[in-house]
């Protein structure tokens, strides 16, 4: 995993897990990797993953079944989508809007570009 420059690593991993849930790599009811397993996979400090998991629990994306471990919560896909959407609107969109304004790109042009993009993705 490549970490970006701006956001704390534990939060970047929260977003990465949300993506895994939306992409259905991780499903509701799945047991999630242990703190150590994920720390080794992502080459980060285990305390960082512990913080990521605390955050996910506070977001109700992950539940702790006593004695067995952590599991992906019910309706996780909706919750993950809602969270990432909020992050995107608050953090990424203003930057994109800045550029769109700067380069004076019309909504029609943007719409067209977006259609071309999604068509290309479907063909893959």
């Amino acid at each position, binding site marked *: 995993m490549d970490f970006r420059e701006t956001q704390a690593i534990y939060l970047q991993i929260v977003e990465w897990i949300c993506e895994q849930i939306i992409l259905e790599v991780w499903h509701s009811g799945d047991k999630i990797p242990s703190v150590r397993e994920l720390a080794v996979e992502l080459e*980060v400090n285990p*305390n*960082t993953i512990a*913080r990521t998991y605390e955050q996910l629990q506070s977001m109700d994306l992950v539940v702790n079944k006593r004695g067995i471990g952590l599991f992906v919560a019910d309706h996780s896909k909706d919750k993950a989508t809602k969270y990432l959407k909020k992050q995107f609107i608050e953090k990424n969109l203003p930057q994109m809007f800045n550029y769109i304004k700067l380069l004076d790109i019309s909504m029609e042009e943007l719409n067209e570009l977006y259609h071309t993009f999604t068509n290309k993705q479907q063909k893959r």
Partner: protein
Amino acid sequence: MVEINDLSFGYTRKENLYQQFSIYFKSGQIYGLLGQNGSGKSTLMKIIAGLIYPDSGNCVVDGIDSKERNYNYLHNLYIIPEEFDLPDMTIASYVRIYAPFYDAFSKDQFATYLKEFDISPEEKLHKLSYGNKKKVLLSFGLATNVRVLLLDEPTNGLDIPSKKTLRQLIAAAATPERCFIISTHQVHDLENLLDHLVVISKNKLLLNESISTIAQKISFVPFSSRPAENETLYYEKSFTGHIGIVANKSNEEGKINLEVLFNGIIAQQAKFNQLFKPNN
């Protein structure tokens, strides 16, 4: 877990590298020990390892003074120095001779780690390159399962894939009972593994703070043009313009740019001292 109290030490009588220096290292933490060349990082590690003694003051690990230099002190501690000499023998002989000093040494773990680094246990130590010798020592050190592991420039000499292997091995080995102290100039090699930063400069403790506290207090922001006076605590030129360190006014923690932070602390000691003072 590792307590250094009022340490004074100098290699010559004229110059004291440390004078009345104190610091405490907790278990369950990975410490990054940073400092310029000659700032005393390796000396501090050698003092903790019991290789050199304080002129005054002491170093205590789990209640035992380093001056005792006894079994209880030494069997739970391992140092991988930056410069080392290995005896002329095979890796297997080395392990046969040196592993018994460490109660919790695991031959299975050692074999696994060597394999991860792609080194055969049949090899003769003297025939290995510096980087490969380092991999043997790193594997040995991690396999001792000691509670205090001191790593002096552990990524020096390692090739790109072995740096990744080392990160994974450290992530797997860091447990709540253990304390890792890692000195490094290659800040990007291990930055995502650190819990806590210690910056020293010839007897001065310039910073001793957890990564999360640092990220709560300051953030790193790009500037397209040179920042104005007092706009930043510190700034330097970057690829796309300037990057500055400013007080973090949000509730969210960002990612720390270790290189810029280090340069800032060295250049603006008073400002950072003020900001990271206890109870601030």
